[in-house]
């Protein structure tokens, strides 16, 4: 997947969680949870969706790397390069 495709994937998953999520002013370097209506259970939804869609088993110690949209891309890019 390209970086843009990974971004789209994350936003698509968030939109599935909250169809009212507003991405217009989303800063890709700021934590997603500070900008969107996402709590810890919603965050685990993102982890679960990545598991379901791409068989990714993300260890808990790596969760901080999914904090911002850009950090998601950086973390997932090597994992999804053949996806």
């Amino acid at each position, binding site marked *: 997947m390209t970086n843009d495709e990974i971004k789209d994937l994350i936003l698509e998953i968030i939109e599935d*969680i*909250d*169809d*009212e999520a507003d991405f217009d002013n989303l800063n890709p370097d700021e934590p997603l949870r500070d900008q969107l*209506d996402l709590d810890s*259970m*919603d965050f*685990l*939804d993102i982890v*679960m969706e990545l*598991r*379901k869609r791409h068989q990714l*088993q993300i260890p808990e110690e790596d969760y901080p790397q999914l904090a911002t949209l850009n950090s998601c891309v950086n973390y997932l890019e090597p994992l999804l390069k053949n996806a």
Partner: protein
Amino acid sequence: MHNNTQRIVITGIGLTAPNASSLSEYREKLINGQSEITEINLRYFGKAPAGLCTFPETKYRKKKENKKGTRAGCISVYCAHEALADAGLDLSSVDRSKIGVYIGLTEHGTVETENEVYNIRQYDYNTSYWTHHHNPRTVLNNPAGEITLSLDITGPHYSIGAACAAGNASIIQAVQMMKLGEVEMALAGGISESTGSFGIFASFQAQNALAVADDPRRASKPFDLDRNGIVISEGGCVYVLEYLDKAVARGAKIYGEVVGYAMNSDARDFVLPYGPRQAECMRLALQRANLNPEDIDLINTHATGTKQGDIEECKAIREVFSGSQKTYINNTKSIIGHAMGAAGVLELAGNLPSFTDNMIHPTINVDNLDPECALPNLVLNKAIEVDSINTILNNSFGMVGINSTVIVKKV
């Protein structure tokens, strides 16, 4: 601290039933005997008559929260907000730490567990795909807790598990907690999401207790010789309970006062009802209300459309009310099906307007009255108007031998 002489009244009602999502619409349809029981098609199980609720699910919280929570939570949040609006209460002026939330449930978690087992089937039952939402969705306090999350209520909340007596049990719990002064106001009621569970339908069918009919609206037939079982419905109903003096002081509309209640246990059988213990339950409620049988104007029966259940309750009523010529009797399940944990409160709510309109809604679908259920003053097939209704006795009984009676009096 309030003492146990405090009088407690119902000042708000929020509900969703298979034929309505407001008390006024519900009452009108009950008076007209208008059933909207439909047909459901469940995974593994197939088709059955069922009562399904249609209400504005995102009126009080976002779709996101509904997805995160449960169907029972979605129903309870809607009913709680509607009850407060009906009571004319703005919680910004109320101490939310003094509000108790008590929700009666026949069961909870069955739907969510069945769904999750079904969902991991596509992953070869690998439990690493089991949702992290499972536990918060299936803890038994979930439907009550979702109300507190939505309304920022910080007083106690919990669910009352009392099979199909649970709706009444929640009212009783709320009244007791208010009399103890543990809380100063309560949101109490019952919720059922049981139509989402194939297992509940299959279990009733395995007991030969699930109704079948060509026309689903004709499937729920308590007291009729041709009844063949229960129609399972979802539903919810939440009452606002306040102290009478506070309700009067703020000029609240008062539906009625909870003047008596009782619960007891058959201690006999997992599923078969037992009339003599039901009679004891009704007598105890009358005694606590300081009323005689002839003081009761209307009995709203529990009867579900099973032969033994209907007959046992009729025997119990005949025994307790044999000397009462003026007590009318009706049944709401014939119109809305059996809303399980919501049944007691939903059925009582549908009859409380009798205090002001002097009408009694009918028991529908009775073509061949079972002689063993031929009680005097049974209101059949057509609503009647009477001079006045001042007291209603509401029965709700449940599996594993649990009985409940609540008596409400016009204020």
